[in-house]
C-alpha cells in the first residue's frame, strides 16, 4: 500500500500500461520535458524515451488527429488535451471523426485510443478553464467516458481505458490532483461501465461523479448525524453506464439525488434521472432531485465559484429540506 496523490496516480497508471504494451504512446502539450502543466506526467519521458513520450505544438486538432490516425493503424495512443474546455477547439476530430468512423466504415477501423483532459472547476481559473464537460462527451454516440474520483480509480480506470478497443475520454478532476489516498501496490486494472457504492444508507441514494463524490460522502456523513442515512454511488463511468447498480440502489431507498458539477441543462444527471423515471418509477417515494451547478458560466472569484459549484453544505441542506419538509 502507498499514499499517492491523484496526480501521481496518473503518471503511475500511464507507466503501468506503457511498460506492458509497446504500442502505448503519450502525446500532448508540455507532457514530456515539463512533465505536464499539472505535473501529471512527471518521469515518463525519462522512463520511456522521446519516441514514446512526445511534446506537441499548441494544435489540439493536430493532436487528436494524430491519435486517431495512429490508432487506426495499430497503435494505442494516449493524447492529452490540457484543459477539457479545449475540446471545443478540436471537437470535430473527436465528435465527427473518432466517434463515427467505425460505424461509417462498417467496422473496418478501430480506435483503441485514450484522450485525457483536466476537467472541472474549483481552482479559480475562470469560465474558460473550469468547465465540466462530461455531459458533452456522453451526448456523442461512439465515445466512452470515465471520470475517476480518487487515486486508485485513476490507475484502474486508466488501465481499463487503455486496454479497451474503443475510444475513451478520460476526464481527470483538476481539483482532486493534490488529494492523497491509499493505493495498493502492483498492477491495478478496473472495469469500464461499473459504478461503486462508496457508502451504504437506507433512506436516500446520492449519485455523484468526479469531484462531487467526496463532497457527497462528506454530506452523507453530516446527514447521518441528523438521522438521514444515505447511500452514495460513485458513477465513475458515464458510457458505458452501470444502470443495474444505479437502479438497484435507487429502488432500495426510493429517494434519489444527483450531485453534478456540470451546468444544469442536459447534465449527466438529467439522463440518469430520466432512466430512473422510466424504469423504477414504482419504487420512488418522492421526486428525483438534481443538485447541480446553475446554468451559468463559472465565475472566477473564490466566493462566487464556491457558491456556484455544489458544496457539501448545499448537498446537506437540499437533502434535509427534501426529506423533512
Amino acid at each position, binding site marked *: 500500500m502507498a499514499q499517492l496523490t491523484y496526480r501521481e496516480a496518473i503518471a503511475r497508471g500511464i507507466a503501468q500500461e506503457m511498460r506492458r504494451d509497446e504500442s502505448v504512446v503519450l502525446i500532448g502539450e508540455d507532457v514530456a520535458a515539463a512533465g505536464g502543466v499539472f505535473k501529471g506526467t512527471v518521469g515518463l519521458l525519462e522512463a520511456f524515451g522521446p519516441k514514446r513520450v512526445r511534446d506537441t505544438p499548441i494544435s489540439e486538432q493536430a493532436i487528436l488527429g494524430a491519435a486517431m490516425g495512429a490508432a487506426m493503424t495499430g497503435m494505442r495512443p494516449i493524447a492529452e488535451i490540457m484543459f477539457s474546455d479545449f475540446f471545443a477547439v478540436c471537437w470535430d476530430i473527436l465528435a465527427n471523426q473518432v466517434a463515427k468512423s467505425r460505424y461509417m466504415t462498417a467496422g473496418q477501423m478501430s480506435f483503441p485510443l485514450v484522450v485525457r483532459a483536466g476537467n472541472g472547476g474549483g481552482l479559480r481559473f475562470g469560465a474558460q478553464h473550469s468547465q465540466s464537460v462530461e455531459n458533452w462527451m456522453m451526448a456523442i454516440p461512439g465515445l466512452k467516458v470515465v471520470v475517476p474520483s480518487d487515486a486508485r480509480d485513476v490507475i484502474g480506470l486508466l488501465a481499463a481505458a487503455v486496454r479497451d478497443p474503443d475510444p475513451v475520454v478520460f476526464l481527470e478532476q483538476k481539483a482532486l490532483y493534490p488529494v492523497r489516498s491509499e493505493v495498493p501496490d502492483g498492477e491495478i486494472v478496473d472495469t469500464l461501465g461499473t459504478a461503486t457504492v462508496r457508502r451504504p444508507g437506507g433512506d436516500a441514494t446520492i449519485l455523484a461523479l468526479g469531484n462531487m463524490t467526496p463532497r457527497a460522502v462528506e454530506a452523507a456523513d453530516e446527514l447521518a448525524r441528523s438521522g438521514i442515512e444515505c447511500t452514495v454511488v460513485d458513477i465513475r463511468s458515464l458510457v458505458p453506464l452501470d444502470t443495474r447498480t444505479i437502479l438497484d440502489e435507487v429502488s432500495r431507498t*426510493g429517494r434519489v439525488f444527483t450531485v453534478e458539477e456540470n451546468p444544469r441543462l442536459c447534465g449527466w444527471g438529467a439522463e440518469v434521472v430520466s432512466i430512473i423515471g422510466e424504469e423504477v*418509477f*414504482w*419504487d*420512488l*417515494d*418522492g421526486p428525483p432531485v438534481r443538485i447541480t451547478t*446553475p446554468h451559468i458560466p463559472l465565475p472566477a472569484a473564490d466566493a462566487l465559484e464556491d*457558491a*456556484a459549484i455544489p458544496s457539501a453544505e*448545499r448537498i446537506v441542506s437540499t437533502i434535509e*429540506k427534501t426529506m423533512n*419538509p
Partner: protein
Amino acid sequence: MIVAAESRRLNTRHRASPRARRLLREAGLAEPDAPGSGPEGRILGADVESFIASAAQNATASDRRNDPAGPDPADRPAAGVAVFMAVEVDFFRIDRVRQSAAAPLGCLPFVARAVVDGLAAFPYVNAQVGEQTVHVTSPVHLGVTVDSAAGGLVTPVVREANSLRLASLAQRIATLTDRAQADDLEPADVEGATFTVSDCGPHGTMLTAPVLGSAQVAALGLGAVRAKPVAVVREPGEYVVAVHPVGTLGLSFDQRAIDTGYAAGFLDRVRGALEARDWSTEL
C-alpha cells in the same frame, strides 16, 4: 442560490407515491383514507407498510381470530347461516361507457371490478369460515358463476382478480365463460374461489340469493338490468323522473363471520363505485 420550484397542487386522484401505490396494489388494498406522512398528506411506502401490518391485526368481532394457517378442513361447518341483503344499482353511467368500448361489454365485468375494489376495503368479505376462525385471503380469486355446457351451473375462477383492471378482467371472464360453454374447463379452473359473483341477468330474474359455497363468507348475485323509472335530482330538493337501466345486487353472507353493518358497508361501497366512478378511464 437555486430557486426551488413551487410545489404544485396535490393531485387528488393519486395521493400515494408510486412506491406506495405499488405496495397497495401488491397487497390488494385500496388507498387508505387517512393522510400519510408525506408532504400535504401524501401516502408514502412506509405508511403503506404500517397500514398492511395493522390491517392484518384488525378484527371486526372480539371472538374471531385471524388464523394465518388457514381453516382446518376438519372443522368446516356443515352449513353456513346465510343472511341475505340487497341494494338497487343505477347503471346509467356504466351503460354509456360500456357501449362505447371497442367490444361492447356487459354489466358483469363492471360489477366484478367494483366488487374487487370493495373487497380491498372490506377484507373480511373475502374470507373463509372455520369452526373457530375466519381466514382472510389477501388476493381475490373471483369465482364467476356461469351456465355450463351440460346445462347446470359452474364457477370458474379468475385468479388474482385484484391485480386486473376492467379490460383485462372482462377478457378473463369472457375466456372462462367460453371455455365453460365449450366444456373445456380443468379441475384447477374451478377451485379456490375466495368470493363468487353470479350474473342472473340472462335468466331475467330481478333478485337472487346466491348459495354460499362451503366455508365461503359471502357471494353476490346480479339481477337483470332493466329500464326503470328513477328519481333524479335536477337541483337541490327538486326531483324529476328519468328512465335508467337499473339492476339489483344481492349479497348472501355468513353471519358468523361478518355482521349486517359490515356487509351493508361492503354492498354500499360496490354500489357507490358502480354508480359514481369514471369508468372511461379504465377502458
